[in-house]
Each structure stands twice: as C-alpha cells, then as structure tokens.
C-alpha cells in the first residue's frame, strides 16, 4: 500500500495523566491509520481512551495530561514536533473535531454567525484579504455552511445564540463550524449520543453526504456498534487504553476475533434475541493506574488462560485485520 493513501498515521501513542493516585495510562501504545476518503469508526466504552487518542491528535491534551511518546503524522508531517502556532494553523483548517456536547462546546455568549466567522477568518485562505469584501465573503460562506448542514432560513439564524437552537440543530451548527474551512479530516466525537434516533439518523446521513461530496476522511468515535455498521468502512475497537481489534466493519462485526469484541456484540439487546438470555461481559473496566503487563481484558475474559498473564501485542489475523489476543496467535502459528 502506498504511503500516500494514508492521511493520518499514529504510531505507538502513549498519553498519560499525572494524578495523585499515580500515572493513569489513558492511551497506551495506540496505532491508528486513517486513509484518504474513508470513514473510520472508533468503538469503546467510557475510559477506553478513544476520545483521549483523538484529543492527542488535535493537540488538545492539557495538563495534567501529556503525550509521553509516539508519533502523529498528518500527511507525513509529525504533529507532535510542531510549535503551538504551527499546530493552531493545522487545527481547524486541515483537521477539525466536533465535540459530543454541542451546548458546552459552543460559546453561549457569541452568535452562531460570529462563531462561524471566527473559524473562517482564521483559516480560510481563499477569502479577500480585508475590508468590506472580506466581511461580505465571510457572511456568504457562513450562510452557505448553515444551508449545507440543513438549517432552515440560515440568513436569519446567523444572528441567534446557541441556546435558541434545539439539540439536533446545535450539533449541526458545530458540524458547520468544523467543516467551514474545508478540512481534510473530520473527527466526530460521539456526534449523536445526546440526540434522539430520528435526529441521529439525520445527522449521521448529513456527515456521510458531506464526506462523499467533499472527499474528506471522517473518524467517527462512538459506543454504538449499530452506527458503525451503517456508516464506517473500517472499525477500531478500543479497551482500557489499547486497540484490541481492527479491520473492515463487515469482517469485525460478522467475524469478531477478540473476546471483548464478541462480548460487546453479545451485549447489545435486540428484538431477535427476545426470550434468550443476553450475555453481558462480567465485571468492569480495570483501573488504569499501575496495571500489570498482562492482557487488559484478563479479569473479564470468559476465555482466559494462564498464557494471558503476559503482555500481548497486536497480531495480524488476516488481510487488513489485526487483533490483540494470545489465543489467536497460537492458532495462527499452528
């Protein structure tokens, strides 16, 4: 595979938080590849490190958090080596991120128009240099963005504040702001978790439409495997700070290799399972302070053996398919 196909490459990322109880290894050796034009799903439960991984990519990790090691290459350029100023230029223009909670992510004291203009003013290089022409161009672009995300009568709504919009509309506005400079990569962190299902379907379709139209790549962070199944080309499953499985969405869902992925799929209640017991994963996510080097899923794994007490690396288990389980390697070797 040519190197050029990959828009984003993260290698061995470790992001830690220094706390009074010790060092929390929130992201522990994570590799990510995002190809041009694809939608990558990132699935995991709270504390799996999925949001911290992509906050690290955005350069948004703040003290007491820090990136301990690892490389983050965007179009071949290592983002971890950039100055704050250089990073600021890339953030927004080339990589944008939308946050889960639109109400807290938007500034309540600025109108929607002001927030869109701010983004365009900072990042859009195609605008007239200054003066009334620039202001007019920014306004036109803002209206265009709101129209793109399906806000009715966008001209009149530019002057309104976030609280004057519904939850679904706020999420759209955040997507409009993120997309305004025409980024190559959109990171959407739980874009629909707070929304009703009919609105969720609208927002996800909107992201898919725009991705196809603008040819950008999307990382969709979610806890909902159904959303991944319907919208993502590939998926990465995270558990306790590590990637445990990745591959094409169809493969991972129809033929999960890691016991955690199987557990997650088995935990989803559905109509077709009525009357049959669901098989929840027992126990809970381990504390990320001072973890032993063993497989992180050991304490909850129904298939654990003594062999699992050593550390496990990701193994290739097929074309474009990797998983982190000792049992698998043994099968592969045999």
């Amino acid at each position: 595979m040519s190197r050029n196909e990959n828009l984003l490459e993260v290698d061995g990322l470790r992001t830690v938080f220094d706390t009074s109880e010790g060092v929390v290894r929130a992201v522990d050796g994570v590799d990510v590849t995002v190809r041009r034009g694809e939608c990558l799903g990132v699935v995991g439960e709270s504390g799996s490190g999925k949001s911290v991984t992509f906050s690290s990519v955005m350069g948004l990790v703040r003290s007491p958090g820090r990136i301990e090691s690892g490389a983050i290459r965007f179009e071949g350029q290592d983002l971890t080596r950039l100055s704050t100023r250089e990073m600021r230029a890339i953030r927004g223009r080339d990589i944008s991120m939308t946050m889960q909670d639109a109400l807290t992510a938007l500034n309540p004291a600025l109108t929607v128009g002001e927030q869109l203009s701010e983004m365009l003013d900072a990042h859009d290089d195609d605008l007239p240099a200054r003066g009334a022409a620039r202001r007019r161009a920014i306004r036109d672009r803002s209206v265009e963005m709101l129209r793109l995300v399906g806000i009715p009568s966008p001209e009149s709504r530019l002057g309104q504040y976030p609280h004057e919009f519904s939850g679904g509309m706020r999420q759209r506005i955040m997507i409009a702001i993120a997309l305004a400079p025409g980024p190559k990569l959109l990171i959407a962190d739980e874009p629909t978790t707070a929304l009703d299902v009919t609105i969720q379907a609208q927002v996800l379709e909107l992201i898919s439409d725009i991705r196809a139209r603008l040819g950008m790549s999307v990382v969709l962070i979610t806890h909902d495997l159904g959303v991944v199944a319907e919208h993502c080309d590939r998926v990465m499953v995270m558990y306790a700070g590590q990637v445990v499985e990745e591959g094409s969405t169809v493969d991972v869902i129809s033929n999960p290799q890691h016991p955690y992925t199987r557990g997650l799929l088995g935990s989803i209640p559905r109509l077709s399972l009525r009357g049959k017991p669901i098989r929840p994963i027992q126990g809970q996510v381990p504390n990320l302070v001072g973890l032993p080097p063993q497989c992180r899923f050991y304490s909850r794994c129904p298939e654990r053996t003594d062999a699992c007490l050593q550390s496990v690396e990701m193994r290739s288990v097929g074309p474009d398919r990797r998983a982190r389980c000792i049992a698998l390697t043994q099968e592969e070797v045999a």
Partner: protein
Amino acid sequence: MTSPAKPLLSVENLSKVYQGRQTLANRLAGVRPFSVRAVNDVSFEVRRGEVLGLIGESGCGKSTLGRAVLRLHEPTAGRVRFDGEDVTALSAGALKDMRRRMQIVFQDPYASLNPRSTVADIVGLPLRLHGLAKTTQEVRETVARILERVGLNAAHLDRYPHQFSGGQRQRIGIARALISHPEFIVCDEPVSALDVSIQAQIIQLLLELKDEMGLTYLFISHDISVIGYLSDRVAVMYLGEIVEMGPTDDVLARPRHPYTQSLMSAVPDVDAPGKHQRVRLAGELPSPLDPPKGCKFHTRCPLAIDVCRREAPISEQVAPGHQAACHRLSEDLSVRETAAGAQAR
C-alpha cells in the same frame, strides 16, 4: 406471558398539564401564561407479571407519564387504578402505604442517590418509612441481603455513592426500589446512562429479579433495541399521546403508525446495516407549548393528507390487542414504500 383478566395497573384518560404562573405584568398585557400538555388523555393497562415498554423521543412525555402514574407528579385529570384501588383518590397517608407496592428506578444514577448518605441509609430508608424493620441491626441485615442479590455486598454498606461506578450506583437504585417488596416498578430509562456491557448486566439483573419476585414493569426507554428485547407489549408515545400500542413482536415487526415506522427505520442495525430503506422524518419534534392541530404527527408525517391537519385521529384496533391512531390505517400504507415511491418520481 399469562394474561389474567384483571390488570394490575389501569390508567384511564390520564392528563398532565404544566401551567405557568400568571404574573401581574402578563395579566395587564393580556398575555395568558404558558401551559404544556405533557401527557394528553392517555389510557393503558399493565397486567400482572408483564413488562410494558413505553417508547418515545425526548420531550414526548414518557417520563412525565411514568411519574404521574405514581403520583410523583400529580395528574391533572384521569384516573390510575392499582390492583383495583383508585390511586388518584388516595389521601397522603394512604398513598405512602401504596408506594411500598409501587416503586421507581431513575435514569441518572448520579443524581438520584443522596451524596451525603451511606448505602445502608439510602437503601434502608424505605424499611424505616414503612416500618418494615424495627432495629438498626435488622435494617442493616435486610439491606445487606438485597445488596447481595443485586451484585453488591455487605462491605458496601457504609460507603457513599461517589465511591461507586455508574453501573454499581444503578444497582443501589434497584436495591432501594426492591427492598420494600413492591409489586410494580416504573423503570425510567434505567440503562440509558450506562456503557453497553454494563447496560447488558443491568437488563439481565432486572429480568432475573422480575421472575424471582414476580414483578411487573412499566419500562420507559428511548432505545428500541432495549424495549424490543425485554417488553411483552409496547406503547409508542408522540407529543404526549400514545399513537400505537400492542404486543412487541407485532408492533415492531409490523408497525402501523407512520411514526412507529419511521422510528423503526431510523435505528441503526448491527445485524443488517443498510437493510432498511430509511425514512427521513422532516424536521424535529414540534414545541409542546404550541402543538399542531389535528393529528400531532402531521407536520412530520410523509403520509399526511388534509384530514390529518384538521382532525385528531381516534385509536382503532388493527390486530388482536394492537391499536393505532392514524387516519390512513385502512389504506395499509407503508411509510417506507411511499418514501421510496416519492424518490423514484
């Protein structure tokens, strides 16, 4: 799923209106205070041992309905009968006794437990209120037993809520609801705030407890997968009204109301992605302050015709035990086909 003749809970024409206060300024200006009809003329029954799933999007009034049934929010009109007794007519004292038999598990395990009380106090409170245990020792022993049953243990008795994870807190909430040996529980989105694997644990626990203790649930959720998995019957709410109700298999496999059909098609499916012809509902839930005239769903309904804008439809039986309220039921239309047809044209 046996169905004895007499329902355990029967709700008749229940309404809940939230009325804004009239201020002097408004009165002088001739402005009427706001009023929201959160639940509008809702009737249903829950049989003993049954799980009735109540589904709808945020703002549809499902939580208000759950609370009005228990009189946690006083209903504005209508009647609630529990085991033959008129709950809406009970005096405060009699209501307190009734609450021993009717309990609730709340959605948010962070907000529904007093942060300053220990688990023993939180879970033991119903025992004290209803005089079910005399000594502190007796309370602690009873609490320890129920904690054990919900997957915690006696070592947790003297801890505070913040020392537990979300899933554990929900177990504490369940223990509190169960300790007075109720017959009926309103489960108000009990698993919505939890991670998938923990959600499955709690669902499993609720189903086990139901069988062991012979409980009856009114299970409120916005999650169709959860409702589909555990309910015997399902009621679909939209803007304060039940638009469709019937046996789960029947309603979810063959939804008749266009809203239920749209809701079903919007759920992403792990098993068969892209299987559905999506029905894109136009717009969002109208403001309950100013609900549409006629059928409340007409502003978003792909099948709406003139009569829908003028007259509210009356609920009709469409199959045994299955009712829906729509003007176009007899035409047996599918929103999906209609939407596909419209696209083709």
